[in-house]
């Protein structure tokens, strides 16, 4: 079947099998490999991307379900001049990563947290990231990074291409 969607601002149409998962579509058809597949069972959140303004785990969404949608992956966050998104910048400043495997999903999920609540407490960040696992257990710095990103204002809870992330 044919699916059409906007991925990181680029409109594309591809012929896919109905059973193709969005995570595999992004990685293998679009060649966007920042989106990691960790547990493959909707638990770890490494495959989190933003679809029509909402964070989702792309290992549990069919590419066909995203037909017609606006999809943003980690690759779509930085500006054309390479300027980092406020959440990316804060993860770097606060060293919000160790091995880095969970990081793309953490960053996308953090944008969703900030869209829902622009100035979360530590506890609210932890609850908002409950669907993302860091097996290095580097959570303290991740929480700190999200709170630092919040100081950048509303852009921290938004993805580019003027797609507003909803609560």
């Amino acid at each position, binding site marked *: 079947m044919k699916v059409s969607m906007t991925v990181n601002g680029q409109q594309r149409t591809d012929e896919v099998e*109905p059973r193709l998962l969005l995570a595999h579509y992004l990685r293998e058809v679009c060649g966007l490999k920042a989106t990691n597949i960790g547990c*493959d*069972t909707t638990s770890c959140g490494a495959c989190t991307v933003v679809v029509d303004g909402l*964070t989702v785990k792309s290992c549990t*969404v*069919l590419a066909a379900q995203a037909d017609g949608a606006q999809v943003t992956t980690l690759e779509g966050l930085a500006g054309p001049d390479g300027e980092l998104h406020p959440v990316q910048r804060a993860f770097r400043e606060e060293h919000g990563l160790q091995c880095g495997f969970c990081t793309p999903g953490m960053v996308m999920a953090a944008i969703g*947290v900030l869209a*829902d609540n622009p100035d979360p407490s530590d506890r609210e960040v932890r609850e*908002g990231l409950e669907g993302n696992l860091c097996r290095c257990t580097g959570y303290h710095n991740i929480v700190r990074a999200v709170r630092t990103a919040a100081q950048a204002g509303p852009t921290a809870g938004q993805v580019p291409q003027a797609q507003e992330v909803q609560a």
Partner: protein
Amino acid sequence: MIPGPFELVRPGTVEDAVAALVEHGDDAKILAGGHSLLPLMKLRLAMPSVLIDIGRIPGLSYVRVEGDEVAIGAGTRHHELEKDPVAQAEVPILPYVASQVGDPQVRHRGTIGGTVAHSDPASDLPTALLALGGSVVAQGPDGRRSIPVTEFWLGFFETALEPDELVVELRVPRTGSAGWGYEKFTRRANDWPIVAAAAVEGRVALANMAGAVVRATATEEALARGASIEEAAALAAEGTSPSADMHADAEYRQHLARLLTRRALEKAAGAGAAAA
């Protein structure tokens, strides 16, 4: 993991979805958010040859007051229910319980109709709906019918739905400011409940204590007789047959049922002070 191959049908109306169910029978499954079905398909525990994607049918997501009841469209996603002002005012247990499902990403996809039709005994929203009372509205080739929630969940992945019917709406009584409680025990933040208890106006339902969500009838009868919360909650595990798994054995689940029932009833008695 990749699901087995299937044909995808994308009806534009509920009538077309029902027609597809009639045409394909047992080979077909309804796809809504997919957060129960797709994991099963990836594990090849389910291999439907046809998926009927109802996610593009307009008008299936709503929460509105109709007389003494609140009507909730089957396509209402958990995060929508969580934030819905009508649900918060009229039946506040539901938005709270919706907020306890999985994690934010899961709540962005999962639908109330999906979790109802799936009949996993460890689901949060069916437990709350069973305690609330009310009904499941199903649509088939002969039109709509209403099934009381007490007759809907028959067992593990088994409901009173006919193979050619689809859940289109949930109807629950307006509880307003009446007290309620929902207590869920998990080991990890985004897990299914090992056991959960929902209490609303003297009715108590339990998750994961049998093949399907169940009412704690001995507790309800004791409350009706005027027993104290402590006495009534001590009866919560009566007649239950919970399974044993790596998280808990049956005896421990029965202990949790009594404990969580007591806490849920205490919160309900605290009138509205139920949000954890």
